[in-house]
């Protein structure tokens, strides 16, 4: 599904990502963890075209997407959410979702002007699909609210809905549970499981909260100083001395 080969990203002399290798198989739920500043979000930015890699190849469904523009990559089937919520805050909830459909709707401006048949059918279909997605995330009652007026947890959920609207094959979630309480986090994780099944998604997830990642992901990558230092099942990762060192410092290992 997705493969990164020897990917590096330099900012001036600083290597934010160095020799990144990762592969994600269809249908997997993979976690990307690592201490603050390890380069997790940079990795997402590379995968989605926000940055183009200094070196290396990013293969998505057998095609090198390194250096393509973000909107092209999105339309090929990679969608994401953001660590710091980036909704279109002055737009309504449903309009936020509709923006996500952008790459998949086709009607001419001409048709829109004269309320042609394509325009009407496309608009109704879009409306229905947006409402369907909102329902899954229990946001249907908020459809006409401004995104900025939603409580924090709902904004996080709306971001996932918006990303799903882009019909991704691969969904990248950047700390989806950041700032949520344990109760909300639990619900969110259940939701992520559900959408993975319902939409046949492959998911790559960045998370800070180790216990949470351990519970949900099948496989983990650990990033530290821009390098992958470990890979494996949550159980393997938990006992990997390199990971413990990265998270807790070297002394912890000997204590």
């Amino acid at each position, binding site marked *: 599904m997705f493969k990164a080969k020897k990917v590096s990203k330099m900012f001036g002399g600083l290597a934010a990502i160095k020799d990144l290798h990762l592969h994600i198989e269809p249908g997997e739920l993979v976690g990307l963890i690592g201490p603050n500043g390890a380069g997790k979000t940079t990795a997402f930015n590379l995968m989605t075209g926000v940055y183009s890699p200094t070196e290396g190849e990013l293969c998505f469904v057998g095609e090198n997407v390194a250096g393509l523009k973000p*909107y092209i990559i999105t339309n090929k089937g990679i969608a994401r959410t953001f660590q710091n919520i*980036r909704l279109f805050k002055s737009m309504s909830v449903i309009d936020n979702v509709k923006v996500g459909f952008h790459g998949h709707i086709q009607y001419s401006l001409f048709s829109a002007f004269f309320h042609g048949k394509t325009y009407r059918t496309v608009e109704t279909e879009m409306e229905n699909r947006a409402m369907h997605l909102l329902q899954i995330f229990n946001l249907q009652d908020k459809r006409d609210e401004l995104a900025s007026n939603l409580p924090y947890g709902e904004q996080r959920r709306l971001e996932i809905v918006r990303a799903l609207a882009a019909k991704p094959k691969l969904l990248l979630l950047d700390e989806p549970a950041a700032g949520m309480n344990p109760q909300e986090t639990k619900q969110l994780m259940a939701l992520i499981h559900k959408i993975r099944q319902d939409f046949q998604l492959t998911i790559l997830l960045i998370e800070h909260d180790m216990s949470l990642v351990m519970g949900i992901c099948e496989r983990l990558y650990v990033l530290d100083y821009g390098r992958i230092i470990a890979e494996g099942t949550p159980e393997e990762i938990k006992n990997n001395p390199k990971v413990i060192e990265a998270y807790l410092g070297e002394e912890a290992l000997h204590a």
Partner: protein
Amino acid sequence: METLIAQILNGLSLGSIYALIALGYTMVYGIIQLINFAHGEILMIGAYVGYFSVAVLGLNIYMALLLSMFVSSLVGVLIERIAYKPLRKSGRLSVLITAIGMSLLLQNGGLIVFGTDFVPFPQVIERIPYRLFGGRFVVTSHQILIFAVSILMMLLLQYIVGYTKIGMAMRAVSYDKEAASLMGINVDNVISFTFVIGSSLGAVAGVLLGLYYQTIHPLMGFMPGLKAFVAAVLGGIGVIPGAMLGGFLLGIIEALVSGYWSTTYKDPVVFVVLIVILIVKPTGLLGKNTSEKV
């Protein structure tokens, strides 16, 4: 009372032209935070294309409007792609200065190509004075045409921005370019489309100004451009209804000052009003409080 209403009617038709121009400023500002100082020159080009369509090609006014919208959009997009796009990642000041340079280039280019003389604008529709309320007020057919065309353009714009796919994309891009591109929106195309719309509105304003003043000139875009910029700021730059409100307000203030006082003072009064409003409400009449985007 009669003078008042007569002047307000005058102000409405001039104000609707200002509003059209102001919309061009405000849309471009909304999407790339640039005051496109070359917008006044787009208007001038629109006016000349309108003139040639009518005087040389013998088209009617509506066809002339369409042709001038088309040519001006092309020029607008070219300016954006050649002059502004390469600077998108550099500071706002560099783009601003480029815009001023572009404006000067087009003004002087216009003087070379079109000559320095005032050209009489063909009177494409007959000037019929309509007397209302027993002849107490006079509205000319030109005023009605100007007003009607402007309102139509504004409605069209509201529709595009509010109810179409590209309009939705414009709103998304104006809020967060990067997030929009990650939702599958081609940001470059959306920006170009914004210039198409702004320039089309400018072209219409140019032709209407030709009808209003009955002459055109290569430097004709400068003052209306500046006024419309004031109108856009007055209403709250980046806010579409603000540009319309600002335009109408400006037109009416000008007409009232000219009617009751003297035409000499209309420009200073306009700028004083701007200063006062900016002191009281720095974001403009309908402006949003721009909180820091984190």
